[in-house]
Protein backbone atom coordinates (compact mmCIF):
# COMPACT_ATOMS: atom_id res chain seq x y z
CA UNK A 1 0.00 0.00 0.00
CA UNK A 2 2.99 2.28 -0.42
CA UNK A 3 2.44 4.29 -3.62
CA UNK A 4 -1.22 5.16 -3.60
CA UNK A 5 -2.62 8.62 -2.93
CA UNK A 6 -4.47 9.17 0.34
CA UNK A 7 -8.02 10.53 0.13
CA UNK A 8 -7.64 12.19 3.53
CA UNK A 9 -4.63 13.32 5.56
CA UNK A 10 -4.39 14.84 9.02
CA UNK A 11 -1.73 15.34 11.62
CA UNK A 12 -3.01 14.79 15.12
CA UNK A 13 -1.33 17.20 17.49
CA UNK A 14 -0.65 16.29 21.13
CA UNK A 15 -3.78 16.77 23.21
CA UNK A 16 -6.14 16.22 20.28
CA UNK A 17 -8.20 13.60 18.51
CA UNK A 18 -10.09 13.47 15.22
CA UNK A 19 -13.40 11.85 14.26
CA UNK A 20 -13.15 10.39 10.77
CA UNK A 21 -15.94 8.92 8.67
CA UNK A 22 -14.46 5.71 7.39
CA UNK A 23 -16.54 3.86 4.83
CA UNK A 24 -16.47 0.11 4.38
CA UNK A 25 -13.50 -0.70 2.18
CA UNK A 26 -11.43 2.27 3.31
CA UNK A 27 -8.21 1.99 5.28
CA UNK A 28 -7.20 4.30 8.11
CA UNK A 29 -3.43 4.43 8.56
CA UNK A 30 -2.29 5.62 12.00
CA UNK A 31 1.42 6.38 11.81
CA UNK A 32 4.15 7.40 14.17
CA UNK A 33 5.77 10.74 13.32
CA UNK A 34 8.49 10.80 15.94
CA UNK A 35 7.93 7.36 17.44
CA UNK A 36 7.02 6.24 20.92
CA UNK A 37 3.46 7.60 20.99
CA UNK A 38 0.41 5.72 22.27
CA UNK A 39 -2.84 6.31 20.36
CA UNK A 40 -6.23 5.62 21.92
CA UNK A 41 -8.97 4.59 19.52
CA UNK A 42 -12.77 4.47 19.53
CA UNK A 43 -15.08 3.36 16.69
CA UNK A 44 -18.84 3.48 16.23
CA UNK A 45 -21.18 2.15 13.57
CA UNK A 46 -21.65 5.34 11.53
CA UNK A 47 -25.36 4.63 11.08
CA UNK A 48 -26.13 3.45 14.62
CA UNK A 49 -23.85 4.74 17.35
CA UNK A 50 -25.23 2.22 19.82
CA UNK A 51 -23.02 -0.33 18.07
CA UNK A 52 -19.38 0.31 18.87
CA UNK A 53 -16.03 -1.39 19.05
CA UNK A 54 -15.90 -3.48 22.19
CA UNK A 55 -12.56 -4.15 23.84
CA UNK A 56 -13.98 -6.93 26.00
CA UNK A 57 -15.26 -8.83 22.99
CA UNK A 58 -12.07 -8.16 21.04
CA UNK A 59 -9.96 -9.28 23.99
CA UNK A 60 -11.93 -12.51 24.28
CA UNK A 61 -11.43 -13.35 20.63
CA UNK A 62 -7.85 -12.19 20.09
CA UNK A 63 -6.22 -11.89 23.51
CA UNK A 64 -4.72 -8.94 25.37
CA UNK A 65 -2.52 -7.63 22.55
CA UNK A 66 -4.34 -7.87 19.19
CA UNK A 67 -2.20 -7.17 16.16
CA UNK A 68 -2.02 -7.76 12.40
CA UNK A 69 -4.58 -10.26 11.18
CA UNK A 70 -7.12 -9.70 13.94
CA UNK A 71 -10.41 -7.82 14.10
CA UNK A 72 -12.02 -5.14 16.21
CA UNK A 73 -15.43 -6.53 17.21
CA UNK A 74 -18.58 -4.75 18.29
CA UNK A 75 -20.39 -5.53 21.50
CA UNK A 76 -23.03 -8.21 22.17
CA UNK A 77 -25.56 -8.77 20.81
CA UNK A 78 -24.18 -7.17 17.61
CA UNK A 79 -20.80 -8.95 17.63
CA UNK A 80 -19.67 -7.94 14.16
CA UNK A 81 -16.16 -7.44 12.96
CA UNK A 82 -16.13 -3.67 12.40
CA UNK A 83 -12.46 -3.25 11.49
CA UNK A 84 -9.64 -5.51 10.38
CA UNK A 85 -6.05 -4.86 11.45
CA UNK A 86 -4.47 -5.22 8.04
CA UNK A 87 -0.98 -4.09 8.95
CA UNK A 88 0.85 -3.43 12.19
CA UNK A 89 4.55 -2.74 11.80
CA UNK A 90 5.26 -2.37 15.52
CA UNK A 91 2.96 -5.10 16.77
CA UNK A 92 2.21 -3.93 20.29
CA UNK A 93 -1.32 -2.85 21.15
CA UNK A 94 -3.42 -3.15 24.27
CA UNK A 95 -7.04 -3.88 25.13
CA UNK A 96 -6.52 -4.31 28.87
CA UNK A 97 -6.24 -0.74 30.05
CA UNK A 98 -9.09 1.74 30.02
CA UNK A 99 -8.58 5.24 28.67
CA UNK A 100 -6.84 7.61 31.04
CA UNK A 101 -9.09 10.26 32.55
CA UNK A 102 -8.90 13.59 34.33
CA UNK A 103 -9.62 11.77 37.60
CA UNK A 104 -6.34 9.86 37.23
CA UNK A 105 -4.30 13.02 36.79
CA UNK A 106 -6.01 14.81 39.66
CA UNK A 107 -5.92 11.88 42.07
CA UNK A 108 -2.40 10.70 41.32
CA UNK A 109 -0.64 13.89 40.22
CA UNK A 110 -2.70 16.80 41.60
CA UNK A 111 -3.58 18.42 38.26
CA UNK A 112 -6.64 20.66 38.08
CA UNK A 113 -6.73 20.05 34.35
CA UNK A 114 -4.60 17.77 32.23
CA UNK A 115 -4.72 16.19 28.78
CA UNK A 116 -6.41 12.80 29.08
CA UNK A 117 -7.79 10.28 26.62
CA UNK A 118 -11.35 10.36 27.86
CA UNK A 119 -11.75 14.09 27.51
CA UNK A 120 -9.87 14.18 24.21
CA UNK A 121 -12.13 11.45 22.83
CA UNK A 122 -15.24 13.22 24.12
CA UNK A 123 -14.22 16.48 22.50
CA UNK A 124 -13.48 14.82 19.17
CA UNK A 125 -16.73 12.86 19.28
CA UNK A 126 -18.73 16.00 20.08
CA UNK A 127 -18.36 16.94 16.40
CA UNK A 128 -20.86 14.13 15.74
CA UNK A 129 -23.26 14.87 18.59
CA UNK A 130 -21.92 12.28 21.02
CA UNK A 131 -21.56 13.03 24.73
CA UNK A 132 -18.79 12.26 27.24
CA UNK A 133 -20.89 9.31 28.38
CA UNK A 134 -20.65 7.80 24.89
CA UNK A 135 -16.85 7.40 24.96
CA UNK A 136 -16.14 3.68 25.22
CA UNK A 137 -13.16 1.59 26.30
CA UNK A 138 -10.28 2.38 24.03
CA UNK A 139 -8.22 0.12 21.84
CA UNK A 140 -4.75 1.37 22.75
CA UNK A 141 -2.46 1.36 19.73
CA UNK A 142 1.31 1.25 20.20
CA UNK A 143 0.78 0.66 23.94
CA UNK A 144 2.97 -1.91 25.69
CA UNK A 145 1.39 -3.68 28.62
CA UNK A 146 2.03 -6.82 30.61
CA UNK A 147 0.15 -8.92 33.12
CA UNK A 148 2.20 -9.74 36.19
CA UNK A 149 2.14 -13.09 37.95
CA UNK A 150 -0.02 -11.61 40.71
CA UNK A 151 -2.62 -10.64 38.10
CA UNK A 152 -1.99 -6.93 37.79
CA UNK A 153 -1.74 -5.16 34.46
CA UNK A 154 1.23 -2.86 34.04
CA UNK A 155 2.42 -0.40 31.41
CA UNK A 156 5.94 -0.50 30.02
CA UNK A 157 7.82 1.92 27.79
CA UNK A 158 7.53 1.41 24.06
CA UNK A 159 10.01 1.34 21.19
CA UNK A 160 7.88 2.26 18.16
CA UNK A 161 9.80 4.34 15.60
CA UNK A 162 8.93 7.06 13.10
CA UNK A 163 7.01 5.42 10.26
CA UNK A 164 5.63 2.55 12.31
CA UNK A 165 1.94 2.29 11.50
CA UNK A 166 -1.27 0.38 11.93
CA UNK A 167 -3.64 0.02 8.97
CA UNK A 168 -7.28 -0.45 9.95
CA UNK A 169 -9.59 -1.64 7.19
CA UNK A 170 -13.24 -0.73 7.77
CA UNK A 171 -15.58 -3.69 7.21
CA UNK A 172 -18.61 -1.49 7.90
CA UNK A 173 -19.15 2.26 7.74
CA UNK A 174 -17.71 3.56 11.00
CA UNK A 175 -16.85 6.77 12.78
CA UNK A 176 -13.23 6.18 13.70
CA UNK A 177 -11.69 8.35 16.41
CA UNK A 178 -7.97 8.14 17.13
CA UNK A 179 -6.41 10.46 19.70
CA UNK A 180 -2.89 11.19 20.89
CA UNK A 181 -2.81 9.71 24.37
CA UNK A 182 -2.56 12.52 26.91
CA UNK A 183 -0.23 10.71 29.31
CA UNK A 184 2.94 12.82 29.35
CA UNK A 185 3.80 11.98 32.95
CA UNK A 186 3.55 8.20 32.48
CA UNK A 187 5.70 5.70 30.64
CA UNK A 188 2.86 4.93 28.16
CA UNK A 189 4.48 7.18 25.54
CA UNK A 190 7.93 7.30 27.14
CA UNK A 191 7.11 10.48 29.11
CA UNK A 192 6.43 12.63 26.07
CA UNK A 193 3.67 13.57 23.64
CA UNK A 194 4.26 13.49 19.89
CA UNK A 195 2.11 14.11 16.80
CA UNK A 196 0.55 11.25 14.88
CA UNK A 197 -0.07 11.11 11.13
CA UNK A 198 -3.43 9.94 9.82
CA UNK A 199 -4.20 8.90 6.27
CA UNK A 200 -7.21 7.29 4.62
CA UNK A 201 -6.89 5.12 1.53
CA UNK A 202 -9.27 3.08 -0.58
CA UNK A 203 -8.49 -0.61 -0.24
CA UNK A 204 -7.71 -2.54 -3.39
CA UNK A 205 -9.72 -5.54 -4.49
CA UNK A 206 -6.79 -7.77 -3.55
CA UNK A 207 -6.67 -6.31 -0.04
CA UNK A 208 -10.38 -6.81 0.43
CA UNK A 209 -10.15 -10.37 -0.86
CA UNK A 210 -7.38 -11.14 1.64
CA UNK A 211 -9.56 -10.43 4.68
CA UNK A 212 -10.46 -13.68 6.47
CA UNK A 213 -14.18 -14.44 6.43
CA UNK A 214 -16.00 -14.02 9.72
CA UNK A 215 -19.14 -15.94 10.65
CA UNK A 216 -22.63 -14.63 9.91
CA UNK A 217 -24.77 -16.00 12.74
CA UNK A 218 -28.40 -15.71 13.79
CA UNK A 219 -27.24 -14.52 17.20
CA UNK A 220 -25.73 -11.34 15.74
CA UNK A 221 -28.76 -9.20 16.52
CA UNK A 222 -29.64 -5.64 15.56
CA UNK A 223 -32.36 -3.29 16.83
CA UNK A 224 -34.94 -4.94 14.55
CA UNK A 225 -34.50 -8.03 16.76
CA UNK A 226 -34.72 -6.21 20.10
CA UNK A 227 -37.79 -6.40 22.33
CA UNK A 228 -37.05 -2.79 23.12
CA UNK A 229 -35.45 -1.12 20.09
CA UNK A 230 -36.03 2.46 21.27
CA UNK A 231 -33.03 4.42 22.53
CA UNK A 232 -33.85 5.82 25.96
CA UNK A 233 -33.96 9.60 25.78
CA UNK A 234 -34.24 10.58 29.44
CA UNK A 235 -31.73 9.98 32.22
CA UNK A 236 -33.76 8.58 35.12
CA UNK A 237 -34.52 4.86 35.33
CA UNK A 238 -38.13 4.03 36.09
CA UNK A 239 -39.78 0.62 36.23
CA UNK A 240 -42.02 -0.49 33.37
CA UNK A 241 -45.16 -1.80 35.11
CA UNK A 242 -46.02 -3.82 32.00
CA UNK A 243 -42.70 -5.65 32.01
CA UNK A 244 -42.92 -9.42 31.79
CA UNK A 245 -39.56 -11.22 31.81
CA UNK A 246 -38.77 -13.32 28.74
CA UNK A 247 -35.41 -14.90 29.47
CA UNK A 248 -34.08 -17.31 26.88
CA UNK A 249 -34.97 -20.99 27.34
CA UNK A 250 -36.34 -20.38 30.83
CA UNK A 251 -37.41 -22.40 32.75
CA UNK A 252 -34.42 -24.65 32.13
CA UNK A 253 -36.01 -28.04 32.59
CA UNK A 254 -33.76 -30.98 33.36
CA UNK A 255 -33.75 -34.67 32.57
CA UNK A 256 -31.89 -37.43 34.42
CA UNK A 257 -29.95 -40.07 32.53
CA UNK A 258 -29.16 -43.23 34.47
CA UNK A 259 -25.65 -44.17 33.38
CA UNK A 260 -24.57 -47.70 34.30
CA UNK A 261 -20.81 -47.92 34.71
CA UNK A 262 -19.04 -51.25 34.61
CA UNK A 263 -16.50 -51.86 37.39
CA UNK A 264 -13.76 -50.95 34.90
CA UNK A 265 -15.53 -47.77 33.87
CA UNK A 266 -16.19 -46.85 37.49
CA UNK A 267 -12.49 -47.22 38.27
CA UNK A 268 -11.61 -45.15 35.22
CA UNK A 269 -14.14 -42.51 36.25
CA UNK A 270 -12.71 -42.31 39.75
CA UNK A 271 -9.22 -41.93 38.34
CA UNK A 272 -10.10 -38.88 36.22
CA UNK A 273 -12.84 -37.10 38.17
CA UNK A 274 -11.96 -33.63 39.37
CA UNK A 275 -11.80 -32.84 43.12
CA UNK A 276 -13.91 -29.71 42.63
CA UNK A 277 -17.01 -31.93 42.40
CA UNK A 278 -16.43 -33.68 45.72
CA UNK A 279 -18.47 -36.87 45.94
CA UNK A 280 -21.11 -35.64 43.48
CA UNK A 281 -20.86 -38.35 40.80
CA UNK A 282 -23.40 -36.65 38.54
CA UNK A 283 -21.56 -33.34 38.49
CA UNK A 284 -18.22 -35.07 37.95
CA UNK A 285 -19.55 -37.13 35.02
CA UNK A 286 -21.18 -34.04 33.49
CA UNK A 287 -17.80 -32.34 33.66
CA UNK A 288 -16.20 -35.32 31.91
CA UNK A 289 -18.88 -35.26 29.21
CA UNK A 290 -18.60 -31.58 28.32
CA UNK A 291 -14.84 -31.34 28.78
CA UNK A 292 -14.55 -34.20 26.31
CA UNK A 293 -16.99 -32.46 23.97
CA UNK A 294 -14.91 -29.26 24.11
CA UNK A 295 -11.69 -31.10 23.33
CA UNK A 296 -13.22 -32.94 20.40
CA UNK A 297 -15.70 -30.55 18.81
CA UNK A 298 -15.27 -26.98 20.00
CA UNK A 299 -14.61 -24.84 16.92
CA UNK A 300 -14.66 -21.45 18.60
CA UNK A 301 -12.09 -21.29 21.33
CA UNK A 302 -12.66 -18.80 24.16
CA UNK A 303 -16.35 -18.95 23.34
CA UNK A 304 -15.77 -16.68 20.37
CA UNK A 305 -16.17 -17.23 16.65
CA UNK A 306 -13.03 -18.80 15.31
CA UNK A 307 -11.88 -17.09 12.15
CA UNK A 308 -11.97 -19.22 9.07
CA UNK A 309 -13.49 -22.35 10.52
CA UNK A 310 -17.00 -21.84 9.17
Amino acid at each position, binding site marked *: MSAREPIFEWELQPGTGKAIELRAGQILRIEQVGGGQCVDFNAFNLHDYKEFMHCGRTRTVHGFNPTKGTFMWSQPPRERALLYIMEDTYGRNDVLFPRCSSYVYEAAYGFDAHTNCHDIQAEAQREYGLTPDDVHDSFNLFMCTEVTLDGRATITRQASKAGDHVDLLALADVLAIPNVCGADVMRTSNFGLKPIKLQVFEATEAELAAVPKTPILRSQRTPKDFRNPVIKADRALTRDPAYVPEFT*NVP*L*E*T*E*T*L*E*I*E*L*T*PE*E*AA*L*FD*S*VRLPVHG*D*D*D*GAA*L*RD*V*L*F*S*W*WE*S*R*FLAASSGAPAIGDR
Partner: protein
Amino acid sequence: MADDTTATGRTVRLVLNRQQLELVDRTVARGVAQDRTALVHLALAEYAVLAAAGGLPR
Protein backbone atom coordinates in the same frame (compact mmCIF):
# COMPACT_ATOMS: atom_id res chain seq x y z
CA MET B 1 -23.30 -37.30 46.71
CA ALA B 2 -22.22 -40.76 45.60
CA ASP B 3 -24.64 -42.75 43.52
CA ASP B 4 -25.59 -46.43 43.67
CA THR B 5 -22.70 -48.84 43.86
CA THR B 6 -23.12 -52.56 43.17
CA ALA B 7 -20.74 -55.45 42.89
CA THR B 8 -20.96 -55.20 39.14
CA GLY B 9 -20.41 -51.47 38.86
CA ARG B 10 -22.11 -48.20 39.59
CA THR B 11 -25.08 -46.16 38.44
CA VAL B 12 -24.54 -42.44 38.03
CA ARG B 13 -27.53 -40.12 37.75
CA LEU B 14 -26.50 -37.57 35.15
CA VAL B 15 -28.73 -34.51 35.30
CA LEU B 16 -28.72 -32.42 32.12
CA ASN B 17 -30.80 -29.40 31.28
CA ARG B 18 -32.47 -29.12 27.92
CA GLN B 19 -29.70 -27.02 26.41
CA GLN B 20 -27.12 -29.60 27.42
CA LEU B 21 -29.35 -32.33 26.08
CA GLU B 22 -29.69 -30.46 22.78
CA LEU B 23 -25.91 -30.46 22.41
CA VAL B 24 -25.76 -34.16 23.31
CA ASP B 25 -28.53 -34.98 20.84
CA ARG B 26 -26.91 -32.97 18.04
CA THR B 27 -23.68 -34.83 18.67
CA VAL B 28 -25.48 -38.17 18.55
CA ALA B 29 -27.19 -37.06 15.33
CA ARG B 30 -23.73 -36.55 13.80
CA GLY B 31 -23.20 -40.27 14.20
CA VAL B 32 -20.66 -40.00 16.99
CA ALA B 33 -22.54 -42.54 19.12
CA GLN B 34 -25.71 -44.59 18.89
CA ASP B 35 -27.58 -42.74 21.64
CA ARG B 36 -27.15 -40.47 24.64
CA THR B 37 -25.96 -43.20 26.95
CA ALA B 38 -23.44 -44.50 24.44
CA LEU B 39 -22.15 -40.97 24.00
CA VAL B 40 -21.49 -40.64 27.73
CA HIS B 41 -19.60 -43.94 27.78
CA LEU B 42 -17.57 -42.83 24.77
CA ALA B 43 -16.86 -39.48 26.43
CA LEU B 44 -15.56 -41.18 29.56
CA ALA B 45 -13.31 -43.53 27.62
CA GLU B 46 -11.85 -40.82 25.40
CA TYR B 47 -11.57 -38.32 28.25
CA ALA B 48 -9.51 -40.82 30.22
CA VAL B 49 -7.14 -41.23 27.28
CA LEU B 50 -6.80 -37.46 26.91
CA ALA B 51 -6.27 -37.01 30.64
CA ALA B 52 -3.58 -39.68 30.70
CA ALA B 53 -1.83 -37.92 27.83
CA GLY B 54 -2.04 -34.57 29.58
CA GLY B 55 -4.14 -33.24 26.71
CA LEU B 56 -6.95 -31.60 28.67
CA PRO B 57 -6.91 -27.95 29.69
CA ARG B 58 -7.84 -27.41 33.34
